[in-house]
């Protein structure tokens, strides 16, 4: 490929992303009421964790493992944004894609179907972030979080939530593609999401976990999509830890992309669905 052709291809891809993202913003903004109802419903989960751990902290004389109720509040308020960044195309959607032949139509396009998912959900995130701001304000008024954010932390956080978004998109795509081989996947998904709940920092800041759990979570992707971005903003990580965290995210993005490419190539060879 000549340099000019490569340039043109990159430009076309950027155009594709821009267009799909803009479509997602316009489409999802129409459903702002439904989007909001969904986000409000999502808030009960972190509020429950926050209340439980604040109670424990107070019973222990003000802090658990050095975390005060104010810091728990900060953790679980940032949690709500990171949780929203973690919403990507669901693996449960793959069954419908394959059974109803949507995938056939996607195959006719000249770009790999993952680009559409990545662009669409990324566009949606901008709507979600706008809707999230007032919610965060209300939660902050009620639960009084303590924040100490440095400029570096703010920058790293802005990058890390998109790293988290990419990693989780790739992982759930790989998980979803299992549907190429079998449609009895609900038990597998259940196990995956349970492991994620326990090992990502979604349930509780990972420092509260036993040390062996912490060690396991370091070598799995879950923590880098959830606990790490939250701790960047709500925790007190050293600059070195921030950069190491970003480096691990880059590794997982690369690994995830390679996995998606590999499993896709194997899976698509088995694909034989109806078209329409």
């Amino acid at each position, binding site marked *: 490929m000549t340099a000019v052709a490569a340039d043109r291809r990159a430009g076309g891809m950027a155009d594709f992303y821009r267009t799909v993202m803009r479509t997602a913003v316009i489409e999802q903004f129409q459903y702002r009421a*439904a989007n909001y*109802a*969904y986000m409000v*419903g*999502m808030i*009960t*989960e972190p*509020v*429950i964790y926050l*209340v*439980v751990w604040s*109670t*424990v902290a107070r*019973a*222990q004389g003000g802090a*658990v*493992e050095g975390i005060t109720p104010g810091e728990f509040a900060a953790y679980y308020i940032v949690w709500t944004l990171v949780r929203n960044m973690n919403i990507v195309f669901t693996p449960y959607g793959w069954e419908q894609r394959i059974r109803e032949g949507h995938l056939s139509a996607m195959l006719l396009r000249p770009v790999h179907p993952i680009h559409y998912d990545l662009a669409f959900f990324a566009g949606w995130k901008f709507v979600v972030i706008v809707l999230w701001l007032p919610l965060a304000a209300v939660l902050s008024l009620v639960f009084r979080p303590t924040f100490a954010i440095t400029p570096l932390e703010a920058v790293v956080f802005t990058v890390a939530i998109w790293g988290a978004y990419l990693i989780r998109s790739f992982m759930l795509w790989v998980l979803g593609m299992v549907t190429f081989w079998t449609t009895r996947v*609900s*038990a597998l998904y*259940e*196990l995956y999401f*349970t492991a994620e*709940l*326990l090992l990502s920092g979604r*349930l*509780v800041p990972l420092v*509260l*976990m*036993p040390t062996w759990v912490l060690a396991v979570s370091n070598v799995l992707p879950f923590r880098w999509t959830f606990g790490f971005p939250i701790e960047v903003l709500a925790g007190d990580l050293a600059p070195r830890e921030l950069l190491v965290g970003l480096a691990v995210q880059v590794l997982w993005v690369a690994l995830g992309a390679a996995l998606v490419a590999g499993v896709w190539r194997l899976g698509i060879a088995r694909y034989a669905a109806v078209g329409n």
Partner: protein
Amino acid sequence: MREPLRPLRLAWTFFRISALNELQYRVNFFLQLVQSLVAVATALAVLALVFSHTAQLGGWSRDELLAVLGVHILMGGVIRAVIQPNMQRLIDDVRQGTLDYALTKPADAQLLASTREFRIWQGVDVLVGAVVLAVAAVRVEAAVGIWSALGFAVALLLGAILVYCFWLALTIGAFWIVRMEFIVELFDGVYQAGRWPVTIYPGWLRIGFTFLVPIAFAVTLPAEGVTGRLDGATLAGAAAFTAALLAFTRWLWRTGLRRYAGASA
């Protein structure tokens, strides 16, 4: 009505029909069992985690919280097996106008609308919850006497009725607002709060979880029965609240029904 037991017989007949229908799909039992066991294992891990950092939570010990967990799972099973399926069908019927079929039958429409569907496999959670509860009851220091067992049973029944009233009141909203599907998800989210005793929540949340969404009555109160914390006055208060809410839902049902236009037009 000439026969006082007719409503019960009717409900029993519906239950038998649903059970026979679902018994055809036996693999679903094992799928449900796996799901329930994963959920219980996760909940136990969370409990262990909390109590690795503290000896008691808002005055509740680990074994007492196990009792709360047991009641939560058990009541969740009742809700998903009996209450939720009927209410979901009612929402669909109102939207599609097919409630006509229930209204034209020679029996009380509220009774019919509340007993048409049973998901017996969801009832697996009732068994799992009962096992957790039994383990908790053995481990709690206070001996469970005949009175506290009775108090527990009454509290559980009142709790189930209250959750039913709450769900029905929300569902009746479908007569005014047609799109009500989102309440299922909303209720599931809020119900998770019941895994912990309501006493640990800050004041305004506790009031909400007691009177707006009756989690306190549905889960915490029966658990107090098992752990020997329940007194007669509280139980009498819960009974009075249940009676009042039943009467209110009945009135709301009649009012809502007048808004129903039906499909035959």
